[in-house]
């Protein structure tokens, strides 16, 4: 049986950061369902925040100011000590990335360039044109070649094995061989990313099914604040490919079909650079009012920036528009619409990335510690992955050096793997049944229609009922092929169960939370309610049911006040 000291699941930024910061004396490996360079981190565009103060307007910037913006942006649901920790570590994190080879764009004088981003008091988003995720992911992958990190690519983790509150390892489906097998690990770090594909419209990659979050939930770890789902204001109409906030940071306008910069009505001082929840709602409201184009989208106009600036600072956006929409933003406004983008919620962990299960850690989008609260600011997610990925690696290393080995773990792991194997056999032995891709289409429709940007009780109740009905259909799912190697259908069937769990938890949290906060907007409760709801939602899987509880928010310096932009 393969046995590791630390097993990192996920080869994106958080996963690679964790593997690289783990103690080199320990046996560390990364499992990823795709080659690490194919992880969704690669698609991040606009940048990564740190209060370097490299712009003339940003001289007075400080990590405290970054922390304040993050907390205000979160609609005061962030745990303030954790947000402070991230922002304080941000500056060193950027210089470390630069030292590892990240080719950041530069200002005259040679310092790292920074651009304004939504909800930020100063221009503090460092970038490499509009391919920041690509260059950071490739850089960390280069470092993992240097450090000879062990990778198991195209392996899907299907189960987290926990006994008596202690993590023993995982069960994997090895796509390359078509085998189910256990992997023993003294510590497991999940860096498995988000779940965007439970929505019809999402900026996320096809692979973002969120199964890591669901597996942790079934392993007994609570999920926190899952009702907070970020919709990005600007995704390319039709394909929903991300059009970076950096396009507005560089000076792009949002325009409705009357030619108005309508953000003046919604956020008169921040305009296009209000936080994402506010801009996304404004866009959807304009579309719903009939101020859209084709009733579906608005325009992001970059033409006034000029060809030179677009080619220099936003070459990737230009390429996306040419490749996927057949238009050049130098000459034509970009048609955009909001789409699901990020999960503020996730696996409940503390600021050491540790969960309630001994030896089990999580970092990156799949985790919630909680920094982003009810709404994440642009440029904070890449920062989150590198800062907390690293902390997860260090903390897991400390844990492994002190923990005691569980004697009968191999037998337990083998039993669990056998159970998983039986499930696959069951799917294969059925001659007929439900097709998983059809179930997924139904699930996406429910989430998009009922649990989107604007929510209300009736819709949420109906969504919950329909998700639960889908569970019954899922029991009848079958596989039509007989080949176990590289079977995307097997992957999809495994992951769909997690998607059912996640959507149930998101919807349940949204139904219970009778207030409006950040990305969670209730048409029937339009105001934030700190008296009753300044608290984190926790949902735990107990005896086959989601169980809801709450816990307080850490507030130290910044007293919650109304957000104005």
């Amino acid at each position, binding site marked *: 049986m393969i046995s590791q000291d630390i097993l990192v699941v996920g080869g994106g930024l958080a996963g690679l950061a964790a593997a690289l910061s783990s103690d080199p004396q320990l046996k560390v490996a990364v499992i990823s369902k795709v080659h690490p360079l194919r992880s969704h981190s690669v698609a991040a565009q606009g940048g990564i925040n740190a209060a370097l103060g490299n712009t003339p307007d940003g001289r007075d910037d400080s990590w405290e100011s970054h922390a304040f913006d993050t907390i205000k942006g979160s609609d005061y649901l962030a745990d303030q000590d954790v947000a402070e920790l991230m922002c304080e570590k941000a500056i060193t994190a950027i210089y470390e990335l630069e*030292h590892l*080879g990240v080719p950041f764009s*530069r200002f005259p004088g040679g310092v790292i360039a920074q651009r304004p981003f939504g909800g930020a008091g100063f221009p503090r988003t460092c970038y490499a044109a509009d*391919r920041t995720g690509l260059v950071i992911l490739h*850089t960390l992958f280069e470092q993992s070649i240097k450090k000879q990190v062990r990778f198991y690519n195209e392996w899907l983790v299907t189960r987290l094995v926990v006994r008596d509150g202690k993590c023993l390892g995982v069960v994997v489906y090895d796509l390359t061989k078509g085998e189910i097998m256990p992997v023993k690990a003294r510590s497991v770090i999940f860096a498995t990313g988000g779940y965007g594909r439970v929505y019809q419209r999402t900026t996320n990659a096809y692979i973002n099914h969120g199964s890591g979050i669901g597996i942790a939930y079934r392993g007994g770890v609570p999920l926190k604040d899952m009702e907070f789902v970020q919709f990005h204001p600007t995704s390319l109409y039709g394909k929903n490919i991300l059009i970076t906030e950096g396009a507005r940071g560089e000076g792009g306008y949002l325009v409705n079909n009357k030619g108005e910069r309508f953000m003046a009505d919604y956020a008169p001082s921040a305009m296009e650079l209000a936080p994402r929840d506010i801009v996304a709602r404004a866009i959807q409201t304009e579309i719903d009012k009939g101020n859209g184009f084709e009733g579906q989208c608005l325009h992001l106009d970059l033409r006034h920036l000029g060809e030179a600036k677009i080619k220099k600072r936003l070459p990737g956006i230009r390429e996306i528009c040419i490749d996927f929409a057949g238009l050049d933003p130098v000459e034509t406004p970009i048609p955009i619409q909001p789409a699901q983008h990020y999960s503020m919620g996730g696996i409940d962990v503390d600021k050491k990335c540790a969960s309630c299960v001994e030896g089990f850690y999580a970092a990156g989008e799949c985790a919630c510690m909680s920094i982003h609260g009810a709404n994440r600011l642009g440029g904070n997610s890449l920062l989150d992955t590198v800062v907390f990925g690293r902390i997860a690696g260090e903390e897991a290393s400390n844990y492994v050096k002190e923990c005691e080995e569980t004697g009968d773990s191999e037998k337990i792991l083998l039993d669990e793997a056998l159970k998983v194997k039986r499930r696959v056999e069951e799917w294969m032995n059925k001659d007929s049944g439900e097709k998983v891709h059809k179930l997924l289409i139904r699930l996406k429709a429910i989430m998009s229609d009922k649990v989107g940007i604007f929510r209300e009780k009736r819709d949420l109740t109906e969504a919950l009922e329909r998700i639960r009905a889908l569970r019954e259909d899922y029991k009848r799912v079958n596989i039509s092929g007989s080949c176990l190697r590289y*079977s995307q259908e097997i992957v999809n069937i495994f992951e769909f169960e997690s998607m059912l769990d996640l959507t149930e938890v998101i919807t349940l949290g949204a139904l219970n939370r009778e207030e409006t906060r950040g990305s969670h907007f209730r048409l029937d409760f339009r105001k934030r309610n700190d008296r009753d709801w300044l608290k984190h939602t926790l949902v735990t899987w107990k005896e086959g049911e989601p169980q809801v509880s709450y816990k307080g928010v850490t507030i130290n310096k910044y007293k919650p006040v109304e957000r104005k932009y």
Partner: protein
Amino acid sequence: MEYIFRIMRYDPLKDMYPFFQDFIYQTQEKKSVLEALMDIRNEQDCTLSFRYSCREAICGSCAMVINGKFDLACRTELEMFESSLIVIEPLPNLEIQKDLLVDMEPFFEAMSKIEPYIQTEGGLSEEGYRIEEKEMEKIFQYINCIMCGCCYSACPVASRDERYLGPAALAKLYRFVKDPRDKRPFSNWSRVNTEGGVWGCDTIFKCNEVCPKNVRPADGIEALRRKLVVEKVKRIFRFKR
């Protein structure tokens, strides 16, 4: 519209040879080749295997040969084709693992041989580096590489000579050599002063032609050649003095 997708199928554990299988595909919407392949897999044959992830031409998963052209399936729109016959093959010169999935290991192995990571002098500085944008611009072309493998697979030299590092790895090396932060010694990067390195290139520029991200790897190979020659000459004169 109705299309015929003629897709190369091969399972090395079952089939003696690769073969083509036709699928009829109908769609009313604008679709990319990748979206069509996913529909075909979902609706007609769930055993059809291919790689994908981002669907926005940045992750490098879905490189294949589409009607004879090396490209990413996600950025290839069906409406671009005049004919309704779409022939899909895996990247050539790499071992087929299943259907359109090929073993990328030789590509990554070649990459790792050039030590594809920055080699700086000194530790982390608290203030960071001072590098002018125009210095960084020299490498921007090369950092656009998404490691899809099109250039390696299309390269006539890489296909006949397994020692040859291939376009992507050599361009990557040039990216580091040109990086003001990288202080790797001449002895390190001059290891490509061989037939398996920069002199292996046939200057057919197939790599420039097929690259879906306009990296133009051969520019990097040419530049490395020039730099090697210049450095060699410099060394000869230094020796004579």
